[in-house]
């Protein structure tokens, strides 16, 4: 069981790197990398020893937490501040890393308004990180509105997870 987990983690970490490298291209409608980011959060920072991964270049620990929003809102919640402070610390520790903040919305509401809402959500996180001293030139923002829901459900559980900013590493 434990070895299966180890292999699984390896696959996830590889997938995470792949996701980061492919950060600049258009992604498919269902975007897998965020799940991987979340999954990779669970084991604490020193990652599982996986010889194949370690042969490659190894900026392994860089993983940024998503943040979540209330319905039709774009203010930064208290729980999101904790994640953003953590993300800011990682960005300060890795000054070469550039990121793209992707704003997302749940499926409710119009496509057009949700595009603007996603933009405001991404911009709110941008403001927060820049206020904490992160160079604004390291961060771009994009809104996907409700066009790329990560969770396909039609209930509050899926909606609450889809109202989200993702922090994608675009170069390191």
């Amino acid at each position: 069981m434990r070895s299966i987990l180890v292999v699984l983690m390896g696959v996830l970490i590889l997938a995470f790197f792949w996701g980061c490298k492919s950060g600049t291209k258009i992604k498919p409608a269902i975007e897998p990398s965020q799940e991987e980011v979340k999954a990779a959060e669970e084991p604490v920072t020193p990652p599982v020893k996986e010889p194949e991964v370690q042969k490659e270049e190894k900026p392994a620990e860089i993983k940024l937490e998503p943040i979540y929003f209330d319905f039709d809102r774009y203010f930064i919640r208290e729980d999101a501040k904790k994640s953003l402070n953590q993300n800011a610390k990682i960005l300060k520790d890795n000054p070469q890393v550039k990121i793209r903040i992707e704003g997302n919305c749940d499926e409710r509401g119009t496509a057009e308004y949700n595009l603007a809402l996603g933009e405001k959500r991404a911009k709110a996180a941008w403001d927060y990180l820049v206020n904490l001293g992160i160079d604004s030139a390291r961060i771009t923002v994009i809104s996907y509105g409700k066009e790329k829901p990560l969770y396909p459900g039609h209930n509050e559980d899926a909606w609450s997870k889809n109202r989200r900013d993702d922090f994608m590493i675009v170069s390191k």
Partner: protein
Amino acid sequence: MIKLKASIVIHLLTIAFISFEIASSQTEIYVKMPVGGAEPLDIAVTGFTPKKKGFSIEEQRLSTEIPQIIRKDLEFSLMFYVAEIDSFALSIVGNNPLNLDGWYKLGIQMVLTGELELSGDEIKSEVSLYEVLRGKKIYSKTYKTSLDNFRGLAHTISDDLVLELTGDKGIFNTKIAFISTGNGNKEIYVSDYDGFNMNRITDDRSINLSPRWSPIAKKIIYTSYKKGNPDLWIKDLQAGTNQILSSQAGLNSAPAWSSEGKNIGLTLSKDGNPEIYLIDQSGKIVRRLTNSPGIESSPSFSPNGNEIVFTSDRTGSPQLYIMDVQGTNVRRLTYDLNYCDSPTWSPKGDKIAFVVRTPSGFDVYTIDVTGENLRRLTYGYNNENPSWSPDGYHLVFSSNRTGKYQIYTMNWDGSDQKAVISGGESYNPSWSPRF
């Protein structure tokens, strides 16, 4: 391959293939639009008869199908009661479509008859319209078109009939553009107003949204992530070209053509906040129209071109506002509704259709531009993206009432809601102008 597809699309969108000659015509107004109390006109559309002796099997099919399409068109227009030609009607009228006495007994005011002939790939049809009471031929016209355009032929006959009787051309050759996920991506499709002849017109393999027909040309603007950023693109259906119109950093979204088809209003976030701008057809910014810390989006122009209705969350939730095209004289239009968006100004100028968040989902409403006469048109599930027919008597919208998003039409008062596009997930419809 892509070129080939484009040429097919152009072919299907070109209605100029129908040539016609007018034998007799006059401009007397027989029927007014029903809104405002005018009574619909009772009309019978008879089956078409052979021009020469006897019908081939194909001619037989067309002689039934073309009148049937015309009947559907006329019913849709709200200007007619279309007689059902059932066994009772036939028992009175008999086999002679010109038995005007018989039609009179049935309460019919107008009769449309037609002759039809298929030679090779060409349909030739002569239709005549009679006024029953006076026993008078109002007009007759001869049409020619290719066999595969028989629906277009029927729609053109309906258009001409409505023009003849009301002074305004019908809307039966209009199209609906919408987003569908048929090939796994969000591509733009175009169909006839009644859902037939559906074609995919983009192959962007990306996320496309908010298609909007030019009010004067076969051009569609839309937002696409084709190059990564949500840019504004323009697809010229006649030329078969597709190019970027606005690619400012951030959003280039929620576009709307100005009423004369010259400029475009849209949301740009290049200065850090979603604001409404006016751009010209080269993508150059004419002026910025809004300035608030919140979200400003979804402009739609009044038909006289003087004003713009738009969405703003400046009071904490999205509400509708009206401003003039300079961005000044802003007034709030909606109150007591908790989420409003997708405003679209009626071509008649008096109403705005929009979407409201309700306890059961999202619903289409209309409101007078004065802020009075709020009217709810849909109930239950999500009903979104209303777009007016060019005559202002119908709306196309998307709804997930069957579990999947599909395209529906309804009358201006919410009556007669029916799916016109089903299959796949389809939404974001936009009704074309008359071509």
